[in-house]
């Protein structure tokens, strides 16, 4: 790993690659995940899923299952009066169990709770469901065709998150939401253009494959609900559960142990309402643990078709961009309306575009529901946008680096009206990536290189709190609602607390993700945790220090007493430095008590402007193509991790590498395929994720220019290195072979076809 550091100093251990705090637990098998949890009286649930893509449920006969020895409860929608079955983030359209109709093959129709999972499986086989199959639409084209089967007869009801009211007014029954992003005079941009390019790109539906499939355990006691779950956002799950079961927020406790990977796929509510409903009917604590095949049917990434037109002047400057994006969002809205907004926002990229008009439609189809997935709309649109930038360079005889340089917004410049100015020097990042690829030396014949960039309005909403407790011995406990999903928040956030308080890291304990024990955090996603929770912890540290200063004044007041002065690691009283613990002891007049610091973060002050930060991506690749087989060999993969301030450089680099390899998988092989209404590769044999032997030569440069909103200029990472990967590979293939790839993943068949198209175009 190389590092470019152009930021001010940060107090240790911020900026140091301390070992992960979850390390020993994770290498000894002691780390506890939801799947490892047991409770007294724990019962086990299994689910019956629809074999049909679209069908009315005529009747369910579960009598034999109910009578099966060892069965505790059999639950259908009809068994849940008084439960608000539909929930959702943008649109409350997702019933926790099918109500009268199924909308995709794999939808949950019946839940069985038994003494053990094997018994529940036996009982499932005794259930008879009479379906009335309906015509279905598993592609966006089918769903928007005249006379298409309608998935949701009723118009969408606003979900838990406000702000989508306009998006979800439907102009077509199968359009879940529409978002339009526009500025400037788009007509003029195209009339005055020297070059207009137009094309259509396809990005597949993908599966995040978090290795721990969705797992939840629910327990009711005295009308209060506790749920343990593999969830990224415990507070959002709490809110949905309270809504579904008509409970006060305080009656719902969501606890998240270690999470076995998320990548966005464990954002928002998944199987928690269903698990809680099963526990309610069973009168016992219930465990619902999906396997990978079921997890694929729970959430996937949105597939996309991007029609893109761009206008350039003769020097390669962008004059306008116009696009229609259609997302294949599956049977339920989930978070796709937000993915759609982000896709539209991220299509402008980090470029100065005088006029833009993007319409993004989120379309219901009879497939597994799509929701958040790492990159969040960006990988889909960046593939199109960055491919077209290279096409423009080629048409105008410009170096692909040069055309980007001419269009990139400067640091501080707003990519579009009313947003925060870009907080990165992308032209410099681009130069670093090019240098890693030896850009100025021409590649060998048959080898192609490319460098691509992206900018995502990241961070989600800056609504976050933290609590910082100072104990009488000077040690510190931090309570925060951010989840350790593998990204290293348990380590990086403790480093921030230690750095801000000036106490050794060993004296900081971080408690995370228990809605009854820690204070509110909106979410763990959108690369926001280090930046936004970091700021909340800093604010809590400031708050507690201010209190301690006051306490020092009160405790040590007197005629000639020197005025206490706040210092980094304690309070100076005359020529003596009193540690935080000493101040606590003095104020309580004993070896007890504690000081409580409150850290709030909201859309105000430094985080008033949206987005809270930009997450930039800058990736370079070098590829070789075997023209006889259509196989692409990605030989080098360069990522520039522009994170402002790397609180833990090793972990920041790890995010970049992990994201880039995930991007490689999606570009090269990953794609969920539907045939005849069914997912035909919904398992890990057929859905191929990257393996050890797919690893290219990797180079990472961490760039720290202190330009983010977070502590010491930190800003988010973890998605940026994924977003431009597909476009970079496609552009490099073009430069190696002359073939243009517009549909990901780049399977050998598709590459081979693109090579034949090239030959046809060249008259060969």
């Amino acid at each position: 790993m190389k590092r470019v550091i152009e930021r001010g100093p940060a107090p240790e251990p911020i900026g140091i690659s301390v070992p992960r705090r979850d390390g020993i637990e994770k290498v000894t098998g002691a780390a506890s995940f939801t799947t490892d949890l047991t409770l007294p009286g724990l019962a086990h649930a299994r689910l019956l899923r629809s074999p049909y893509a679209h069908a009315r449920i005529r009747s369910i006969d579960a009598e034999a299952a109910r009578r099966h020895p060892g069965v505790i409860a059999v639950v259908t929608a009809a068994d849940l009066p008084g439960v608000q079955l539909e929930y959702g983030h943008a649109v409350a359209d997702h019933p926790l169990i099918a109500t009268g109709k199924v909308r995709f093959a794999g939808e949950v129709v019946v839940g069985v709770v038994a003494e053990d999972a094997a018994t529940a499986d036996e009982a499932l086989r005794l259930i008879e469901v009479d379906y009335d199959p309906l015509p279905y639409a598993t592609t966006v084209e089918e769903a928007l065709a005249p006379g298409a089967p309608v998935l949701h007869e009723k118009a969408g009801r606003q979900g838990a998150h406000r702000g989508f009211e306009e998006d979800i007014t439907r102009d077509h029954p199968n359009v879940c939401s529409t978002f339009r992003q526009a500025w400037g005079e788009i007509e003029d941009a195209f009339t005055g253009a020297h070059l207009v390019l137009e094309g259509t790109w396809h990005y597949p539906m993908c599966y995040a494959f978090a290795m721990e499939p969705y797992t939840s355990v629910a327990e009711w006691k005295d009308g209060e609900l506790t749920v343990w779950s593999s969830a990224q956002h415990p507070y959002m799950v709490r809110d949905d559960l309270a809504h579904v079961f008509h409970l006060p927020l305080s009656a719902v406790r969501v606890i998240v142990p270690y999470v076995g990977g998320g990548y966005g796929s464990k954002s928002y509510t998944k199987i928690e309402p269903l698990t809680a409903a099963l526990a309610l009917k069973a009168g016992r604590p219930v465990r619902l643990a999906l396997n990978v095949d079921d997890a694929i049917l729970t959430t996937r990434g949105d597939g996309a078709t991007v029609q893109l037109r761009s206008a350039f002047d003769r020097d390669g400057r962008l004059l306008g961009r116009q696009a229609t994006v259609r997302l294949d969002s599956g049977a339920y809205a989930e978070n796709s309306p937000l993915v759609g907004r982000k896709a539209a926002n991220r299509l402008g990229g980090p470029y100065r575009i005088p006029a833009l008009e993007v319409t993004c439609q989120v379309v219901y189809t009879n497939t597994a529901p799509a929701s958040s997935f790492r990159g969040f709309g960006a990988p889909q649109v960046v593939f199109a946008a960055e491919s077209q930038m290279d096409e423009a360079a080629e048409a105008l005889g410009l170096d692909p680096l040069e055309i980007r340089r001419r269009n990139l917004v400067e640091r501080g410049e707003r990519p579009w009206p009313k947003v925060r100015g870009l907080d990165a020097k992308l032209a410099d990042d681009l130069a670093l990536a090019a240098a890693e690829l030896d850009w100025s030396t021409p590649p060998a014949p048959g080898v192609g290189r490319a460098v691509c960039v992206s900018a995502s309005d990241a961070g989600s909403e800056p609504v976050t709190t933290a609590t910082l407790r100072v104990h009488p011995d000077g040690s510190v406990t931090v309570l925060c609602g951010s989840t350790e999903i593998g990204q290293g928040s348990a380590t990086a956030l403790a480093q921030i607390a230690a750095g801000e308080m000036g106490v050794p890291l060993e004296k900081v304990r971080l408690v995370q993700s228990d809605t009854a024990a820690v204070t509110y955090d909106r979410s763990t996603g959108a690369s926001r945790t280090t930046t936004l929770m970091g700021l909340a912890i800093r604010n809590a540290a400031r708050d507690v220090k201010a209190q301690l200063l006051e306490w020092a004044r009160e405790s040590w007041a007197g005629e000639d007493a020197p005025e206490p002065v706040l210092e980094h690691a304690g309070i100076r009283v005359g020529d003596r430095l009193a540690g935080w613990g000493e101040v606590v002891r003095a104020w309580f007049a004993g070896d007890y008590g504690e000081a409580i610091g409150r850290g709030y973060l909201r859309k105000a002050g430094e985080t008033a402007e949206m987005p809270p930060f930009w997450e930039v991506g800058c990736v370079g690749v070098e590829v070789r193509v075997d023209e006889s087989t259509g196989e692409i060999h990605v030989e080098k993969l360069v990522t520039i991790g522009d994170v402002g301030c790397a609180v833990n450089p090793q972990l920041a680099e790890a995010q970049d590498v992990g994201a880039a390899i995930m991007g490689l998988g999606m570009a090269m092989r990953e794609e969920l395929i539907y045939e005849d209404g069914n997912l035909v590769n919904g398992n890990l044999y057929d859905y191929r994720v990257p393996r050890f032997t797919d690893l290219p030569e990797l180079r990472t440069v961490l760039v720290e220019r202190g330009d983010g909103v977070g502590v010491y200029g930190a800003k988010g990472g973890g998605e940026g290195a994924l977003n431009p990967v597909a476009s970079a590979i496609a552009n490099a293939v073009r430069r190696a072979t002359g073939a243009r790839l517009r549909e990901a993943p780049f399977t050998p068949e598709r590459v081979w076809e693109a090579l034949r198209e090239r030959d046809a175009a060249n008259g060969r």
Partner: protein
Amino acid sequence: MRETVEISLQVNERAQSLRIEPRETLADVLRDRLGLTGTKVSCDAQVCGACTVLVDGRTVSACTFLAVDADGGAVRTVEGLARDGVLTPLQQAFIDEAAFQCGFCTPGMLMAATALLEENPHPTEDEVKEGLDGNLCRCTGYAPIVAAVLRAAEAGR
């Protein structure tokens, strides 16, 4: 009543006699009967390697390996690697290289790499990649795991 059978195993050098159902996998027995939840199940179909344990020194996928087939054998799991709180060089190298993020693949990865290094104490980079190709990791992008295994090889496993 379901049919049960009696099996005897050495698990991390401890003798265990258990009455189990013949359909129970080794993963079921380790996790549910012995409380050794370090062994993880992900794909449940012998594709991902998360459940890798050693039976008589050989790697098996505990998610599909029937416990009865381990009868009389010696099983090693992630819980058996460190002794008296002292990590093996491989475990230490995983920490030093940040060779995990979520840690869900890690127990299986450690067991597969332990077997690899026992068979080939000084593997090349390519041998590490080939040897671990049956173990998936979705977080790390693999590079730090390769580095950790090579580092452990240098440190003497």
